[in-house]
């Protein structure tokens, strides 16, 4: 009697042991940590009208002309950053692979520097350098007004700053992409058919690394669109500072926009997962 009972208990324990209890425990805890803040934001954003769930906060937030302006502006900044980054980094990575492998170490070192120099330090340095006129060294001849004094100058500064922030991710994406295609053979084949350097890069190399480019571009997008530090210190009308100010005197609209920006980040990362086959990457504009 007691023996069969013990036997049953033992059998149950073995069965229980096969279910990885602790794995499930940590996984559920992690899921809760992920979900709760998002759920809280979503619920809060739907409660603008008393006793009723509605999308009023979203309607109000999206209808604000300032939202549209700043959001469009931030997206334009992101697009400019992505395009100029690709123009700068693809030929560099290509040239390193093909002609100057000895430059690899120093270029990789430079692309890692943004991890050492946080956004707040970068913008500090940029402001100190470019808020005074650009002069010919050792003379008083002024080449250029301070970049921070006019719109185009500020836009150049902020796009350059974002290019620096995105550089580690962009360079690594592009470099990984080039590792998987045989750049040298492709180049030789294209050259033997009479293609120029520009044609080779634009029509042979770029299409072959498009998955890597897309993942670098989306990461850059995720960094730039909600960025606050550079945008607020350089005083540009971007989405990040707008959302921050909105949060100072409104309650529901900021929650609606926060949830929207989470969905955008999720969309960008989801596409990256799809195109890179699950090799997640992390950026940081914290």
């Amino acid at each position, binding site marked *: 009697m007691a023996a069969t009972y013990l036997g049953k208990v033992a059998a149950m324990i073995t069965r229980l042991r096969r279910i*990885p209890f602790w*794995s499930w425990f940590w996984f559920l805890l992690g899921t809760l940590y992920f979900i709760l803040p998002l759920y809280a934001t979503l619920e809060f954003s739907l409660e603008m009208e008393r006793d009723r769930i509605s999308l009023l906060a979203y309607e109000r937030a999206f209808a604000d002309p300032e939202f549209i302006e700043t959001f469009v502006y931030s997206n334009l900044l992101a697009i400019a950053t992505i395009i100029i980054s690709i123009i700068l980094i693809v030929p560099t990575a290509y040239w390193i692979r093909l002609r100057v492998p000895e430059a690899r170490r120093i270029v990789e070192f430079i692309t890692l520097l943004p991890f050492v120099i946080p956004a707040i*330090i970068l913008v500090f340095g940029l402001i100190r350098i470019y808020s005074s006129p650009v002069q010919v060294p050792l003379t008083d001849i002024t080449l250029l007004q301070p970049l921070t004094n006019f719109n185009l100058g500020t836009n150049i500064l902020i796009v350059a700053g974002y290019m620096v922030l995105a550089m580690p991710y962009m360079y690594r994406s592009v470099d990984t992409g080039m590792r998987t295609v045989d750049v040298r053979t492709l180049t030789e084949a294209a050259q033997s058919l009479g293609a120029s350097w520009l044609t080779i890069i634009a029509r042979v190399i770029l299409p072959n690394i498009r998955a890597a480019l897309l993942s670098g571009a989306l990461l850059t997008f995720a960094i730039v669109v909600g960025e606050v530090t550079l945008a607020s210190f350089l005083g540009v009308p971007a989405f990040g500072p707008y959302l921050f100010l909105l949060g100072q005197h409104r309650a529901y609209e900021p929650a609606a926009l*926060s949830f929207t920006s989470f969905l955008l*980040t999720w969309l960008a990362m989801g596409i990256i997962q799809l195109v890179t086959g*699950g090799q997640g990457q992390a950026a940081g*504009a914290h």
Partner: protein
Amino acid sequence: MAQITLPASKTATGASLDWKKWIGVTPFFLFAILFLILPSLRLFIGSFTDNEGRFTIANVLQLFEQRSILDAYWLSIRISAVTAIAGGIFGFLLAYAVTIGGLPRPLRTTLITFSGVASNFAGVPLAFAFVATLGRTGIVTAILRDVFHVNIYQAGFNLYSFLGLSLTYMYFQFPLMVLIMAPALDGLKREWREAAENLGASSLQYWTRIALPVLLPSILGAMILLFGNAFGAYATAYALTGGAMPIVTIQIGAQIRGDVLHNPGLGYAMAMGMVFIMAISLAGYSWLQRISERWLR
């Protein structure tokens, strides 16, 4: 600048070729010098310059004397260390659960994707999300009060405090750990475990004698990376506490807005101190990463 370091070529044509091939990477170096090196150098030189433009090390020495600056560094270090260790342990356990912990495969893909999103979800939206969760009228605050009869605010909790900011930072810290540790855990070879079991080792012995020693460099390295990740954070803390938590980045922000230290050189020195700590942590990370690569992959 860099072509000088190249070995001299045998022939004149060879030399000119050597020189020409660097043209392809010139735009990159030019960009890096203009928008990364020069701004950093400006702060570096500034931290060794007094108000009259002469060389001085007084600014650097003053970093260790002025109470508010020391406090800012100490607060930043504590908050970064706490979230790096807690986020590191939690992230490791999560990565373990989905890699070799016996959970169904699809959960792994889900967790990795979510980690990618969460480690990128920061700044203002993250701060607002935590206000909606753990603020005075937040959902979790309400659930704890109404269901469990625990009023965390009466118990002394405050979202705009050390604990609150740490909990918020955790949202991007532990996912980063998951992203780094999942591949490392995949690198543990099944043969090691089988060999240990054949020799009569228990599960505990396998973990303490084999798996953890092999994983330790990458665990420590990842935690150091997490430390730097939190140390450089500005937007989240500013959006959440509006400057009430005087961490280094917030203090530097105040210094940029208007010379609150009443000494520009001291501000530059403070920024350089930060770069110094970030550089040490990145160096530590890459050193530990090299050690761990001996065994994993």
